[in-house]
């Protein structure tokens, strides 16, 4: 049996903008994924532990606060601290990220960055392809 793809959609820190995260969560559901939504204002520790306990394939962090450079690496570090392996995960960031920071964010372990206006099919295709790659490697 093919393993179902599980996705954690997370909001971290002081950032109340969840419309985007909810819309993405809903569309990923319709694409056949099992989506777990964290709700607002989670700490990096909470999101990391959720990723470990829920044993997800994908973690999507939504940020509109500008704190992505700080918070995303924190989440990934805590995943490692809790016994998980962030390299096995497909790590996505969504929301407001300046384009000139894409490369640096990717060096910090992020696989894909999706800013407002991204067609949902692009995210779905990206997830399907990346999960397959990572599973083959594992």
């Amino acid at each position, binding site marked *: *049996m*093919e*393993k*179902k793809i599980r996705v954690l959609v997370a909001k971290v820190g002081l950032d109340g903008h969840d419309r985007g995260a909810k819309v993405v*969560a*809903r569309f*990923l*559901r*319709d*694409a*056949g*994924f*099992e*989506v*777990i*939504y*964290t*709700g607002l*204002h*989670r*700490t990096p*520790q*909470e999101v990391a*532990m*959720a990723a*470990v*306990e*829920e*044993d997800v394939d994908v973690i999507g962090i939504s940020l509109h606060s500008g704190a992505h450079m700080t918070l995303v690496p924190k989440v990934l570090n805590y995943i490692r601290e*809790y*016994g*998980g392996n962030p390299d096995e995960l497909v790590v996505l960031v969504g929301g407001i990220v300046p384009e000139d920071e894409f490369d640096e964010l990717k060096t910090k372990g992020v696989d894909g960055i999706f800013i407002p206006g991204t067609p949902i099919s692009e995210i779905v295709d990206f997830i399907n392809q990346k999960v397959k790659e990572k599973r083959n490697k594992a």
Partner: protein
Amino acid sequence: MEVDEIVEGILSGNKRYLARAITYVENEFPEGKEILKRVYGRTGKAHVVGITGFPGVGKSTIVSKLTQEFRRRGKTVGIVAIDPGSPFTGGALLGDRLRMDGLDTNRDLWIDPGVFFRSMSSRGRAGGLAAKTGDAVRLMDAFGFDVVLVETVGAGQSEVDIIEVADTSIVALMPEMGDDIQINKAGILEIGDIYVVNKADLGGAEKTERWIKAMLMMDEEAVEILTKTTHAQEYEVQSGKIFDKIARSGWKPPVIKTIADKGEGIPELADAIEEHFKYLKESGMLIETRKKRLTREMTEILVNEIKKYLRSNRAVDFDKIVEKVTSNNLDPHTAVEKILKSILK
């Protein structure tokens, strides 16, 4: 990840391995079965508590507050929360976890080492649970949690599978969900060991409470009257598990009013849950129920294995026998007797 590594991880209390084991079991990987075999000896200690009720009555909030209460009492808690998976796309939006209290309480349940939360999709299955809920509960039991809470899909009226998994079943309701006829309909309102009227600060909570109590009294009376009739034995056969439970249990299900988001009524609910477990143990009902359940489970496994055997074994040409029966050269009963003979020799 290897089976050995996972089993060792579970037995040494590492959450990451418990998480992976549930994934294997949920997706029916062969490793999952192997892990279950290996940890079975460690199961049977946890108190499995089920919470069911209509969508929106506050099941997830009750679970969150109960978890806090149990942690305060020094107990560790595993949680399996099931939400519906789409029968159309296979996808699911699992939204029970987000009700767990995070920063707004003293104890952050999300990162508490004594708490483990797992969301599960029903994957289109009816009944209120996912197919592998029981196995996930077993893994949590083996991991060593004192209490395992199982939150069902928001149930309609007939999703009663939870009684196959839980030692203690809680049925959660809220005011103004219908009249006393709704309360007396068969189905999930028959299965409670404990009833909760949540959102008790809304008007009408007393009325709902009264109706449930009246329903429970009628249950008792019905059993008493029916067991006195000349057809008592017949009723006993027809009435099945539920009447059986009421008739012999001696447990009177309490009705507890809660305002879960404020934590009101939660200590009382936790008391009732602990009391019920004590009662189950002392009365011998715990062992008896688990025995019955295992009988059903093993029968199911056996039937599945026979099916698999028939599909894979070349000694029995099932299709050919079916053809014979189709062309009236053999009757179905004789055919099955023949098959059984060849399997059992």
